[in-house]
C-alpha cells in the first residue's frame, strides 16, 4: 500500500483510479466516505451488527479487487454501493446465493453523495418524501426494499390485491425520483 496524498476532497473517480494502482489509502478514503451508508442499509435489513459488518466487508473488498466493476460514467459511486449493499444484505437475509451479478447493476441516480453536506441534504429530502407518502404505500415500499418481500408476499401479508401492491411500489419509487428532479 502506498499513500498518494489523496485527501477527503478527492473525487470518487480519482480515488478509484488510485485504487486500480493498488493504493490502499484511496480504499480507506472511499470507506470513510461511504461505509456509513453501506453499513446502515445492511444493518437495517439484517438487524445484526456482525452480519452487517460481513456485508460491509464483502462490498468494499469487491470494489478493491475490481474497481472497474463500477462504471463512473453512468452514475455516482455512493448510490451504487447502497444498491449493492442492500442486494447482498437481502441475499444474506434469505440465505440465498447472490441473484444479481454486480457487473450488471447500473444505477442512474440523481444525488451526488460525495460530500457530507450532499449526503445530509439528500437524506432530509428522502425522509421528507417518505413521510408525505400514504402509510400503506410507504409500508409496501419498505417491505420490498428492507425485507426483500415479493409483491405476492406483501399482498398476502396485507390482504390487498397484487396489482395494488405493484402499483404502490412503483409509484413510491417515482415519488422519490421527483423529489430530486425539482
Amino acid at each position: 500500500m502506498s499513500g498518494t496524498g489523496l485527501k477527503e476532497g478527492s473525487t470518487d473517480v480519482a480515488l478509484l483510479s488510485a485504487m486500480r494502482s493498488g493504493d490502499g489509502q484511496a480504499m480507506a478514503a472511499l470507506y470513510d466516505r461511504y461505509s456509513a451508508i453501506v453499513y446502515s442499509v445492511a444493518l437495517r435489513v439484517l438487524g445484526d451488527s456482525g452480519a452487517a459488518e460481513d456485508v460491509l466487508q464483502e462490498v468494499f473488498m469487491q470494489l478493491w479487487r475490481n474497481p472497474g466493476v463500477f462504471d463512473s460514467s453512468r452514475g455516482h459511486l455512493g448510490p451504487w454501493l447502497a444498491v449493492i449493499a442492500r442486494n447482498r444484505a437481502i441475499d444474506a437475509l434469505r440465505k440465498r446465493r447472490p441473484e444479481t451479478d454486480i457487473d450488471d447493476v447500473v444505477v442512474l441516480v440523481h444525488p451526488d453523495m460525495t460530500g457530507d453536506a450532499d449526503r445530509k441534504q439528500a437524506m432530509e429530502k428522502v425522509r421528507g418524501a417518505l413521510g408525505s407518502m400514504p402509510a400503506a404505500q410507504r409500508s409496501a415500499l419498505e417491505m420490498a426494499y428492507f425485507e426483500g418481500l415479493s409483491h405476492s408476499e406483501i399482498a398476502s401479508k396485507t390482504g390487498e390485491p397484487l396489482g395494488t401492491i405493484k402499483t404502490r411500489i412503483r409509484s413510491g419509487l417515482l415519488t422519490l425520483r421527483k423529489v430530486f428532479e425539482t
Partner: protein
Amino acid sequence: MSSHEQFADDLALHALGTLQGEERLALEKHLESCADCRRELDLLRGDMSLLALSVSGPKPPLRARQRLMNAVTRESRRSAAPARRAWWMLVPSFAAVALAIAVLALWLQNATLQHRLSDLASQSAMQQAGLQKAREVISTLTATDAMTVTLVAAKTPPQPQGKVMYARDRGTLIFLASNMPAPPTQKAYELWLIPMKGAPIPAGMFMPDAHGSATLMNPPLPKDVEAKAFAVTVEPEAGSTVPTMPIVMMGEGE
C-alpha cells in the same frame, strides 16, 4: 396497453430484485429488445438507492475498518502492484517466456539429434567398410579365374595333399589331390570313407596327372553315412573292396 405500460410495475419490482417466476422471465425477454425499459430499470434502481438514505443507524465499528484494511494489506502483499494488472496484459510476457523455453528445448533437441546423426553416420561408414571387405573376400573366393596357390616351407619337397568335401545327407563327395606321386605299375589310388561304425567304404579310384593332381566327383556312395575319417590307399587298378595297407593319406573331419 403498450408493452411499456404492461411492464411498468414489473420494472419497479425487478429493480428491487423481488420479481420472480414467469413474470420475471417475460420481463427479461422484453428487456433484451427494449432500450427504453432498460433505461427505466436503471433509473428505478437509482430511485431505490435513495431509500438507503432514509436509514439513520450507527456508524460501523472501528474494528470493521481495521478488518477491511488488514484484508486489503494482505491482498496487496499477495498480489503486489504488478500482479494487479489485467491478466491479458501478462499474455505477451507469458508468450515470450513460453517461446524462449520452446526455442531452448528445440535447440537442445537439435543438438542431440545432430550428435545421434553423427554417430549413425560413423557407424554406417564402418558397416560400409566391413561390407566392402566381405564382398571382396567373397568375390575372390567365387571368382572362376582365381588362382589357388599353396605355399610351403622353402626347400621342403612338395607333400601329397588331399581335400574332401562330403555332404552326408545327400551322399555327394568331391575330392581334390595334389603332389601325388605316380602309383606303381598297374596300381591306382583308392579313396575310402571310414564310417563311425563298420568297415571302410570304397569312395572311388583315381590316377594323378603329370603334375600330381587328381579329382574325384561324386563317386557312388550310400546316403546318410556319418564319416569318421577319409583315407587313401594304393590298390590294383580294378579297385578293392577292402583297403590294402599301408594307408598313404588320412584325415578326419574338422
